[in-house]
């Protein structure tokens, strides 16, 4: 049998019972024990080596790891600046509310957790949907709001059950609120959660660190344009956290600096009056203080409730807004371009005076149409049979088309383009919000670029009464009439009047920016201004301005949406195919305090739909009379009209 246990180092071949040598056996045992002892020393030596490595050589590395385990830098979001109107009425403010936030990376089973939370606080299906969307958009170490604006009771109920939900916390967050809701929504704009595109913007500003704790950013309107003023400077708190990520104590704190407060040029009561005057009409209105460029009212109808966007708009509301044929999200004053119609006439008249093509007294005969020599087509005047003998003043007061067909026939379109550019038609007015549309002020170069075609005389004739290729935005229209009212001095319109630095209390006024000097003679301007006063007194808008206690100046306009080819309007014409109504005006005529452009989409004639709104604005702004009802009839079928503008 094989020997398994040796008594000596030398293998022995002796088999069978063996006489034992206790002494030798003891020696053998002791040798084995010593070998084991040596192993113990080696093993402990190895441990000591490991400790020296970890605790001496790698100490600073692990020190850093322990510190980053322990210390969290928590950004403190600054208070976003408050927006007020010119009289200090709050238009946008921030308030603190509790939100229920989930950090997905620290939650094992999200669905289970949310189900559990739903038993404690109300979690609606739309909250879940919104959360899911945020989850898809976010990097997963962020905490995301599941519910916002918790009630005190809900906060208390969660606090009791908090231990059941690791990774779920109640946080006090600042929320944006727009007390006026729809009113002035296109001015204030709104803030919403930061998305990837915003992150690029922030990176481009080099403000990444400052936005560390920020969840919201201005998306449109003044919120967007003045984002860097409103945001403020993020503060920092160094906190010690435990393994569960909960703050144990604060180590140091750098307080945030609140964003700057904005005082808008807007008069919110005027804005309210203007929006009310529109009733259910779609359209736009821009009112400017000519002497300063202050935008007193800036209406885009219909509007939307900016409060809906703050927490992330739910899909149902978004669809409603985005797919409505009324386009409530379209900023019409800024981004709606409409043919100016007859409102262009005073500017063309001024061009003719300046170029010497016409004198004020020079008359033409209007037979009711205009024909290009050698062509059969008749450009019709609105008034059948014509206005007879017409001088420049009458051409504006009665809005005689034939006068301007003739003038356009004699004028090079590029000269017209150059002159009208001075009124910022076809250019940016320089208003202080983003997204301004250029509109179209046609020229040969423009047509070549746009249609790869040359300019025809017929193009000039159409353009001569503000139709054809011309398309101006309400902001451009308001700016142009404001330049006339301000005797040719052009100031950039601005929505924000002053910026208050909350930290040091200093207030910075937005400087008046003169954009371009108008090259016209005062006596020429006087002719135009005089004619404009005639329009509401005895001309096309006289009906709307009966019995005013002030003298105003204005011009009606109608821009064609759909050519009737000589037929009359009837009830059968779809409401959305009707002409757009324009009215540009200022008052009082001698010392203008307000200049406005009103556009009523599909309002028909300017005199009928747009002029009454201007009247309501003037009555309110100059006399303090509140409009009782919408100044224009609603969008329903209307009676045929044959009044000319």
């Amino acid at each position, binding site marked *: *049998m*094989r*020997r*398994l*246990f*040796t*008594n000596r180092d030398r*293998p022995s071949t002796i088999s069978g*019972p*063996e006489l*034992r040598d*206790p*002494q030798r*056996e*003891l020696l*053998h*045992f*002791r040798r*084995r*024990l010593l070998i*084991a*002892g040596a192993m*113990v020393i080696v*093993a*402990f030596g*190895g*441990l*000591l080596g*490991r*400790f*020296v490595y*970890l*605790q*001496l050589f*790698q*100490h600073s*590395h*692990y*020190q850093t*790891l*322990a*510190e980053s*385990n*322990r210390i969290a830098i928590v950004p403190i979001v600054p208070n976003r600046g408050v927006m007020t109107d010119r009289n200090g009425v709050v238009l946008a403010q921030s308030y603190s509310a509790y939100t229920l936030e989930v950090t997905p990376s620290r939650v094992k089973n999200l669905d289970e957790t949310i189900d559990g939370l739903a038993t404690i606080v109300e979690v609606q299906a739309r909250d879940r949907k919104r959360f899911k969307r945020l989850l898809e958009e976010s990097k997963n170490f962020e905490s995301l709001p599941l519910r916002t604006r918790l009630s005190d009771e809900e906060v208390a109920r969660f606090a009791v059950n908090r231990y059941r939900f690791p990774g779920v916390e109640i946080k006090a967050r600042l929320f944006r609120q727009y007390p006026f809701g729809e009113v002035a929504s296109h001015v204030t704009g709104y803030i919403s959660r930061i998305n990837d595109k915003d992150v690029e913007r922030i990176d481009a500003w080099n403000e990444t660190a400052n936005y560390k704790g920020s969840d919201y950013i201005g998306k449109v309107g003044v919120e967007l344009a003045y984002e860097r003023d409103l945001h403020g400077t993020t503060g920092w708190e160094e906190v*010690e*956290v*435990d*393994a*569960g990520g909960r703050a*144990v104590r604060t180590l140091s704190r750098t307080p945030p600096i609140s964003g700057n407060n904005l005082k808008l040029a807007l008069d919110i009561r005027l804005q309210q009056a203007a929006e009310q005057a529109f009733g259910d009409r779609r359209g736009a209105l821009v009112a400017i203080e000519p002497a300063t460029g202050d935008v007193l009212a800036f209406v885009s109808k219909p509007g939307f409730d900016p409060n809906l966007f703050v927490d992330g708009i739910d899909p149902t509301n978004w669809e409603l807004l985005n797919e409505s044929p009324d386009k409530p999200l379209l900023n019409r004053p800024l981004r709606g371009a409409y043919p100016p119609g007859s409102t262009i006439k005073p500017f063309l008249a001024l061009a003719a005076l300046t170029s010497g093509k016409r004198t004020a007294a020079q008359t033409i005969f209007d037979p009711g149409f205009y024909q290009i020599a050698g062509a059969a087509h008749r450009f019709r005047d609105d008034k059948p049979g014509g206005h007879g003998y017409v001088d420049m003043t009458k051409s504006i007061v009665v809005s005689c088309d034939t006068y301007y067909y003739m003038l356009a026939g004699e004028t090079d379109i590029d000269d017209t383009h150059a002159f009208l550019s001075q009124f910022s038609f076809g250019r940016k007015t320089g208003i202080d919000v983003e997204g301004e549309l250029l509109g179209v002020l046609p020229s040969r170069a423009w047509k070549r670029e746009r249609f790869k075609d040359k300019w025809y005389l017929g193009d000039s004739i159409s353009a001569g009464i503000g139709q054809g290729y011309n398309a101006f935005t309400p902001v451009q229209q308001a700016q142009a009439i404001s330049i006339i009212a301000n005797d040719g001095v052009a100031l950039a319109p601005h929505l924000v009047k002053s910026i208050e630095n909350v930290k040091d209390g200093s207030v910075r006024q937005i400087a008046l920016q003169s954009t371009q000097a108008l090259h016209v003679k005062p006596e020429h301007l006087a002719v135009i201004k005089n004619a404009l006063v005639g329009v509401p007194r005895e001309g096309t808008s006289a009906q709307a301005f009966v019995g005013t206690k002030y003298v105003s100046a204005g011009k009606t306009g109608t821009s064609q949406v759909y050519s009737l080819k000589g037929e009359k309007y009837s009830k059968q014409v779809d409401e959305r195919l009707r002409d757009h109504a324009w009215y540009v005006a200022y008052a009082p005529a001698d010392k203008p305090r307000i200049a406005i452009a009103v556009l009523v989409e599909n309002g028909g004639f300017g005199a009928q739909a747009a002029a009454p709104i201007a009247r309501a604005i003037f009555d309110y702004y100059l006399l303090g009379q509140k409009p009782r009802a919408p100044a224009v009839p609603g969008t329903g079928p209307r009676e045929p009209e044959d009044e000319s503008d």
Partner: protein
Amino acid sequence: MGKFFALLARIWEVLVRRVDSYLMAAALAIVGIGLITLFSASDQNISRVTSQVMSLGFALLLMWIVANIQPRQLARAALPLYILGVLLLIAVALGGTVVNGSRRWLNFGFARFQPSELMKIALPLMLAWYFQKHETRVRFRDFILAVALIAAPVWLIKREPDLGTALMIGASGFYVLYLAGLSWKIMLGLLVAAAAAAPLVWPHLHDYQQERILTFLDPARDPLGTGYHSTQASIALGSGGVIGKGWLNGTQTHLDFLPERHTDFIFAVFGEEFGLIGSALLLVLYLLLIGRAFVITMNASTLFARLTAGAITLMFFSYAFVNMAMVSGLLPIVGVPLPLISFGGTALVSLFIGLGILMSVQANRKLVKT
């Protein structure tokens, strides 16, 4: 008065007669460090410390009793203890209490007890007794029987599952074989066989055991999951530096980053708060304890005493080494407590019984002439 002092002196003499002062001093120093660390690991909650002190009292009593038993009598108790141990392990398998997914405990109503702890003592005793009995002839069948004696409890404990303890008990059995003179060739053969069997064993390991081994090979694999323990323990030790963060000041400990910090990972708490100086001191204390145990083993009078004492000595070493190596990232995570320091009454009792056996061996070193 004199009589009273005489009585006291007499009592003291009885108390310390068979207690080895070197072993005792080293053990109590380590236990002291353990209590101090435990207080910190419990976030200054004294109740855990009190509970551990009560276990210590009981453990010291048992140690004293065992130290006062002759090794001969211990040898007689070996077989019954071993059989009892195996029966209790079977009882655990049939109706043990499940804690954290493992069936390791027997609940007696008034106390819970881990039979595997009894086995730590019973297996070396059993093997030593067996080899003493067959001192004259050790044959192949004896070896097979010894392997079977080891394998039975190891298999029962492994399936609880408690891989760490199973491995440690297997090791204690192996130590007896080694000290009894198992030939190097066979040991080498066993090693080769073990290596060859590894791929066969792998599929039979529990998922978490496979995870632990994979994580050990690459801790960055899953830093928040299975690698978390190891990573956080290394951070605790390393951030402790040379002098440590100071008692009760360990951030890893007190901010909950360290898992299992009362039990298997208590060394990380100690290392974080007392630094390299503390760690080295603890190593020295263990070395003193083990060194003294070596001396006792060296001088043991009978084969039974030698084998038992040697196996217990090497067990002490194994526990201390495996635990500290695991906490410092040298070995994969196996659930092995740090002897005399980790919180847990049963372990403390079995360790002090082991010390009692060593003391008994030491007290009887000259009684039998070799």
